[in-house]
């Protein structure tokens, strides 16, 4: 019924990601769209405000490439490995290109997206009591309950210009299904002005409609569907490929060395024209080694009426 929203990554980023935008590439460890981040680097977007609970390697790469002026986050690091060198250098420096940081706790970030999705002027949560975080971030404020039953803290809505979500599957209209860790992608997508869905697999509408409870993002809010197998590497896709932990370990010496990081970007981003070339360069053996065994969910019955 609806017209197809399927686009190439190049066209989707060219049309939907603009200099100065607030961009959220979400996905907690799972389903991080490195493919979209690399295309944004290739198209040399500038002055972006990047929002993500855990900036991860993809924002380290985008910030090293000079795409961003500000970072909104809740945990900054290479999980279990170490630091994100490019971000740290830009954040600790005091030059004109110093990266502006706006930080929350995890729940604060989730709350900001939730308020944005629900068009609420604030989101209340029971965190930040007696913490120094409100002292360094004026966007974390106290609020009294109108029922005289205590005070909590509030965070304001976050409404990205663009949210980018990687998923196991979507149909041409953008109806998107995800299983495994869900992070805050639903909230980030509903909060955004524009949404790009990057799918491992393009499926027929009938596949989506067979299990409507599995749908996380409706096509209604999606502007483009990019089909990009392996587009989340080195993060992972539940059931499709494992996290490439070796890549995360190998990143540590690269991110600590500006020259090495620049060389990596030349070789793996600027030097390639897209994800297909990246996957080919990774090599079949490495890709194959990340394939998991099978663990089927089983099927449930929705019934036909009549």
């Amino acid at each position, binding site marked *: 019924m*609806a017209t197809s929203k399927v686009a190439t990554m190049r066209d989707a980023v060219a049309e939907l990601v603009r200099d100065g935008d607030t961009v959220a590439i979400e996905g907690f460890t799972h389903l991080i769209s490195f493919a979209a981040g690399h295309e944004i680097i290739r198209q040399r977007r500038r002055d972006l405000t990047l929002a993500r609970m855990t900036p991860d390697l993809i924002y380290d790469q985008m910030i090293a490439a000079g795409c961003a002026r500000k970072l909104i986050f809740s945990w900054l690091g290479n999980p279990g490995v170490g630091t994100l060198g490019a971000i740290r250098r830009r954040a600790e420096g005091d030059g004109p290109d110093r990266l502006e940081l706006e930080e929350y706790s995890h729940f604060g970030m989730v709350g900001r997206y939730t308020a944005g*999705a*629900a*068009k609420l002027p604030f989101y209340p949560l029971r965190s930040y009591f007696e913490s120094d975080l409100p002292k360094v971030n004026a966007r974390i404020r106290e609020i009294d309950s109108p029922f005289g039953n205590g005070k909590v803290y509030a965070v304001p809505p976050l409404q990205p210009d663009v949210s980018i979500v990687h998923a196991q599957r979507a149909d041409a209209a953008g109806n998107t299904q995800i299983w495994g860790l869900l992070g805050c992608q639903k909230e980030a997508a*509903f909060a955004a002005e524009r949404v790009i869905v990057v799918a491992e697999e393009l499926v027929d509408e009938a596949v989506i*409609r067979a299990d*409507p409870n599995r749908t996380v993002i*409706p096509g*209604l809010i999606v502007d483009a569907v990019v089909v990009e197998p392996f587009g989340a590497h080195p993060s992972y896709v539940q059931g499709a490929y494992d996290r490439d932990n070796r890549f995360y370990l190998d990143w540590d010496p690269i991110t600590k060395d500006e020259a090495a990081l620049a060389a990596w970007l030349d070789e793996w981003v600027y030097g390639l024209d897209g994800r297909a070339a990246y996957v080919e360069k990774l090599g079949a053996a490495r890709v194959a080694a990340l394939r998991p065994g099978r663990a089927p969910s089983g099927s449930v019955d929705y*019934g036909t009426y009549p």
Partner: protein
Amino acid sequence: MTEATFTKNEMMIVAAARELAGQRVCFVGVGLPNIAVNLAQRTVAPDIELVYESGVFGAKPARLPLSIGDPTIVTGATAVTSMHELFAFYLQGGLIDVGFLGAAQIDRFGNLNSTVIGPYDAPKARLPGSGGACEIAINARQVFVIMRQSARSFVERIDFRTSPGNLGGAEQSERIRREQGWLGRGPSVVVTDLALWRFDETGELFVESLHPGVTLAEVRATVGWEPKLAASLATTPAPTSAELRLIREELDPGGAYTR
């Protein structure tokens, strides 16, 4: 022509369906609105998406749902969500173009009562209450009202304001909606068993067209105030044979809502 004979409900359904031309996302109630939206999907609005407050987006009902939570709106839908998500992200989030509302009472500015007849604490009649109506009236981009008109339903003063319409008039309504950042612009059309009403620049209802065979006297007799009339009072185009066939053969073969 036999197809020229139709019931008042069929006229209401057809008139409401035609209003949906060009609309994208519609919040559907049970009964007449549900048949109207399904008719529109088959005629003037083929791409319209049906949203049910029970948590369904992109429903494809295989039969006429007899309740707003009928299993037939779930099977084959695009998405089924918690009601929290439906109300917070879809409705409050501003994704609903049209919300249908009915009511026991309406005033000249389209404010609606579905809570009580008489004083709240000692009601003559206890009505169902808001359900989702209050937030639909505030958050849906526009509201279509479908209800039968009578001296008891079209009243000078409603006994309780469940769902805000144009409040005390367009000026006040537009100011408050702007100041408080409501996403909804308010009611845009009222379809009754006798006529199709719209709102003028002051926010007051006026008769746009009388349904075929209905007299102005009948309309006046069923309104608790002196109703405004369109400069050139039209007659609502009768249901076409195609529209009637869809209603009678596909949408409500049992005639549950249309007889």
